[in-house]
């Protein structure tokens, strides 16, 4: 793993030498996130977001473990136990708000991380495995976040569980049985709450495991970079430590600042008032929506309102899952040998259209399903699928890309490495698309 010029771990202290011969854990760390991992020298701040996602997971696991010491996964008292955390447990309000807003922070950084990968072609060979493991992490995150949102047993928790398990009832013939099996009953209740709690506690550790695979797979070819040109020699890289540990430190500082502003000054801004009403199986809130990070997918689900061969409900569920699953095939849908959008003038335009498209989908997903929003959602959902399944393959076959620099070093010397935000669009004639 890694490049031939990577610094070798040479422990000086006899105790470390002793340990290195028996359990080379420090060697592993040194090679993975220390001075022994050479990284392209021209990474910009978008490359912070992987580390930030790791930090967000750590925050969620730590706050989650302590919250589980006070939470009671019992449909009769779950809501009250969360309120007792907020009122009576020492620093409970801090821990609970940190966990709730930490989930939002996790999704924010992961979405930036994903779109960074889309812009710079980080999913392309030889990094397909890194990308696909990332999609697995994303799916696991969504499952974890959904089940976590059920735990406070408020109105949105309950009806979220009802609606999301309802997806499975769209499966022909066995769907209803699968739903009943998932819930352990005919509606969300004690059995569902308890199993969601169990899985909500388990899945983050599965995510941590897949993250290790994700990083392992990344370290085989090494990190991508804003030029998309592979590392050619030692002059193209710097050691991860101290160069990128320092840069990630800045990123963590900014991340924590945003997190603190949210947690201390607007802890309920991203939440929904209805979840402060205890679950009531007999009354659905007027306007049910999932948490904001599911809105784009919720909009896709709702857009399918017409039966055509298959029932509309099944189309919606297929499309919603399909919109994520198609990401697995992205490395084979985009066959362009050029990675970075800085050198792909046509793709870059479509990339930014996709960003706007997903933002609109998110807005639609969070709004009430009025006919106008529904139509907007149908158009943007259509574009989403067209982008990945039709436009991208055609563009990658026909596009005339710009000439690539011969090496990262050359790009750096010309001031066109893309390491600064102002260089994101390399061609001086084209204004940056942001």
């Amino acid at each position, binding site marked *: 793993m890694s490049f031939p010029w990577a610094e070798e771990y040479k422990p000086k202290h006899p105790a470390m030498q002793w340990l290195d011969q028996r359990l080379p854990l420090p060697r592993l760390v040194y090679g993975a996130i220390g001075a022994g991992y050479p990284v392209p020298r021209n990474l910009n701040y978008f490359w912070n977001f992987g580390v930030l996602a790791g930090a967000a997971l750590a925050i969620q696991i730590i706050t989650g473990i*302590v919250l589980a010491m006070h939470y009671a996964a019992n449909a009769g008292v779950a809501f009250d136990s969360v309120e007792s955390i907020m009122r*009576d447990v020492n620093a409970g309000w*801090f821990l609970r708000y940190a966990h709730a807003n930490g989930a939002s922070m996790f999704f924010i950084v992961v979405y930036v991380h994903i779109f960074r990968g889309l812009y710079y072609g980080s999913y392309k060979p030889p990094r397909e495995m890194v990308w696909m493991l990332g999609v697995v992490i994303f799916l696991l995150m969504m499952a974890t976040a959904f089940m976590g949102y059920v735990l406070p047993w408020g109105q949105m928790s309950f009806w979220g569980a009802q609606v999301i398990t309802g997806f499975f009832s769209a499966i022909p013939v066995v769907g209803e049985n699968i739903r009943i099996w998932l819930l352990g009953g005919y509606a969300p209740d004690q059995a569902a709450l308890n199993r969601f709690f169990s899985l909500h506690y388990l899945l983050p550790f599965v995510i941590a495991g897949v993250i290790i695979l994700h990083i392992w797979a990344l370290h085989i070819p090494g990190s991508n970079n804003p030029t998309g040109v592979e590392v050619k020699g030692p002059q193209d890289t710097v050691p991860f430590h101290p160069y990128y540990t320092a840069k990630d430190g800045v990123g963590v500082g900014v991340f924590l600042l945003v997190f603190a502003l949210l947690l201390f000054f607007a802890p309920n801004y991203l939440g929904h008032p209805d979840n402060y009403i205890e679950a009531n199986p007999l009354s659905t809130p007027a306007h049910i929506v999932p948490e904001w990070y599911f809105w784009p997918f919720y909009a896709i689900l709702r857009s399918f309102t017409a039966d055509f061969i298959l029932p509309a409900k099944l189309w919606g569920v297929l499309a919603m899952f399909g919109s994520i699953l198609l990401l697995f095939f992205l490395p084979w849908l985009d066959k362009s040998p050029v990675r970075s959008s800085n050198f792909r003038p046509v793709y870059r335009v479509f990339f930014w259209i996709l960003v706007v498209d997903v933002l609109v989908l998110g807005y639609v997903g969070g709004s009430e399903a009025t006919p106008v929003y529904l139509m907007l959602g149908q158009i943007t959902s259509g574009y989403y699928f067209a982008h990945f399944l039709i436009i991208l393959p055609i563009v990658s076959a026909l596009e005339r890309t710009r000439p690539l620099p011969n090496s990262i070093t050359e790009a750096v010397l010309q001031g066109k490495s893309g390491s600064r935000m102002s260089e994101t669009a390399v061609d001086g004639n084209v204004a940056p698309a942001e």
Partner: protein
Amino acid sequence: MASVDETLENPDPFLEKEGDSEHGDTDGDVRRRDFLSIAAVSFAGVGAGVVALPLINQMNPSADVLALSTTEVDLAGIEPGQAIKTSFRKQPLFVRNLTPKEIAEAEAVPLSELRDPQTLEQRTKTGHKNWLITLGVCTHLGCVPLGAGEGENKGPFGGYFCPCHGSAYDTAARIRQGPAPKNLFVPEYEFTSDTHVTVG
């Protein structure tokens, strides 16, 4: 003169032309660089320490647990020689009405013989010497001693007997034999009337 090695380690093209590259950073720069890194890492350490406090503090009793601090006991109906078991802060509480014989036994013991010397007076309220109110928690490892219930083994000293490891308490609930180090704990309480006690 720049050697070949130096060029490899520090390839010239990457050195931004800030003064003479051969001399590198001045001593002052080096010190500032170290200072900033050390300060940043120290700040991170302090921050982690401060965040650890609520993570640790959350395990302390919560406000609702602390609020459950008093228990009312009605003494009417406890005849001399009888005892009741009730609970105080989720722990067993023994309330015992001593007979004159038991009081005499307790007072007859010289303090020098005791592992944890205390008189019966010190362990009861003035004017209510017959009311022995203690936690029912053995001071050895926390079992509930026998002797409060009707017909239970009161042990060799006629008070309480802990079956777990054989600690025996006398009629003033003082430790007399076995591994327990202390007398049964007397919680704070006061008589609100002749027949009512508020514990805690």
